[in-house]
């Protein structure tokens, strides 16, 4: 793909995701009680910052779109603003710290999945462990097996154990390993591959290349699936990341921190965009 075509693809996907995030944000603003966009005031050097004003009625569609557009634009030029939850630091700084924790959980889950896909026998993988159940199974084991105060205690190594639970839960590992291995096995059984083998030519490189797009889709599906799981495992192991932040926003029904919600949605959208653009096909072929 030429650089110009790649640039157009990135711009198109980014525009689609920004539009999707704005749509979700406006939907929440319009439909949910307790959302007050006037609790934020625009300050030229900072972006949106908490103000003393309170709302009597829910914001409209136009007000929601305007808020989202201004906040997104401000974030792009380094004025992300300050959220009500933590007004002492910028929203970008807050999301960066929490995003780093989530990235740690996500990265550890990926490492474990990579090891499972490479070495684990298929039948050994759990297929029926829902996220909270897997999380608490790991939690209970950690509680029993690690001495309190050690480096592997769940208080200190929460990111590690959350990553392990994320990798094992919802059958992601099993579906991924079955999918990746099954796709290659099916291709190996095709007549052309058997002909190659009979002629003494190793069919594996061609099998890898032919199945790369399909396997890349499976890997992307698993990666995106893991993102949703962050909401649960971070809460179980007390990791204050993006998933935990979103969970708090959803559960707290008294008043919604609109700027923080927009920021969290933007972060998740950026990760989905990154997963979509990663050259996984090339890596797999």
């Amino acid at each position: 793909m030429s650089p110009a075509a790649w640039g157009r693809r990135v711009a198109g996907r980014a525009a689609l995701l920004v539009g999707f995030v704005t749509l979700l944000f406006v939907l929440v603003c319009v439909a949910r009680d307790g959302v007050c966009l006037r609790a934020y005031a625009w300050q030229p050097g900072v972006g949106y910052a908490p103000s003393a004003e309170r709302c009597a009625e829910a914001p409209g569609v136009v007000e929601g779109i305007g808020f989202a557009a201004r906040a997104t634009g401000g974030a792009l030029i380094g004025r992300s603003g300050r959220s009500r939850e933590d007004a002492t630091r910028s929203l970008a700084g807050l999301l960066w710290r929490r995003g780093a924790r989530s990235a740690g959980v996500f990265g550890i889950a990926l490492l474990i999945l990579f090891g499972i896909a490479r070495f684990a026998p298929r039948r050994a993988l759990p297929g029926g462990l829902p996220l909270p159940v897997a999380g608490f199974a790991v939690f209970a084991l950690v509680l029993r097996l690690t001495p309190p105060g050690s480096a592997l205690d769940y208080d200190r190594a929460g990111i590690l154990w959350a990553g392990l639970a994320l990798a094992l839960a919802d059958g992601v590992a099993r579906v991924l390993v079955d999918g990746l291995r099954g796709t290659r096995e099916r291709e190996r059984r095709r007549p052309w591959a058997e002909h190659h083998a009979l002629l003494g030519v190793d069919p594996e490189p061609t099998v890898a290349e032919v199945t790369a797009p399909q396997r890349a889709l499976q890997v992307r599906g698993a990666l995106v699936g893991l993102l949703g799981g962050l909401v649960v495992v971070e809460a179980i192991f007390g990791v204050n990341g993006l998933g935990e932040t979103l969970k708090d926003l959803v559960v707290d029904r008294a008043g919604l921190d609109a700027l923080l919600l927009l920021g969290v949605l933007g972060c998740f959208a950026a990760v989905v965009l990154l997963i979509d653009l990663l050259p996984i096909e090339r890596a797999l072929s």
Partner: protein
Amino acid sequence: MSRAGAALVALAGISLAIRAVPDQPGPAWPTVAHPLGVDVLGRDFLGVLAHGAADFVGPGLVAVTLLLIAVAALSHRRTARPVLDAPRPTSGTRWFLLAAPPRLLLVMLAMLVLDAPSPLVAAVVVTALYLPVALDELDARLHALQEQQVLAGLVAHGLSSSRIVLRHLLGGHLAEPLRRHAAMLFVQVAFTQIALAWVFGASAVSPGLGVSWGMELKRYAAALSSGGCTPDVVCPGSVALLHTVLLLTVCLALLGGVARTAER
């Protein structure tokens, strides 16, 4: 339906006969009256398992029914025009990507919009995300049947549209992929429902049921860490360990069994 799926539905059915409310002051080992014992909150554990299963079996069956209706409508449309008039557009990749957004994340956002969390809305969101994947494969099969003039042959034999759809397509040519997709959809709804019940607290999600497997394990995990057992009373930590192992076994056997049906 697979044996694991039938066992799950039967387990959920038990919830109609057994209550999962505290009727004892503390935990107890299994007896004839309580075959799986009494949990740390004083509830019959078989009742807890049954009510926890009912929490996701109902929404799961609603989702599978929606899938069946969508496939029946698609089959009816194809049967109405059994002869192929245009090549099928290749849309598998596009549909798959559309179905790819994080399932749990979107369900959580749907809950943000609602005043009160609803398990049925969660099931509908998961179904809406999964339907394109299932319909894409089933549509490809129907297209192949048109290509092989199977549908035209059935119509030429004078069979009614409903008989073709119900008996020959849903119960015949499409039965294998339909069973696979139904199992996968059921498992996805169950996983989402259990996670959702845990996030909101079981009673917030479904006030009538009030019990979820995810929530129960959270309670037992808290009891696991409690120490101080004396020989003359039942140790809550030991009973909690038994119930944790039982719950994990049921999850792996039943939900894992349905998941295996989806992979075959």
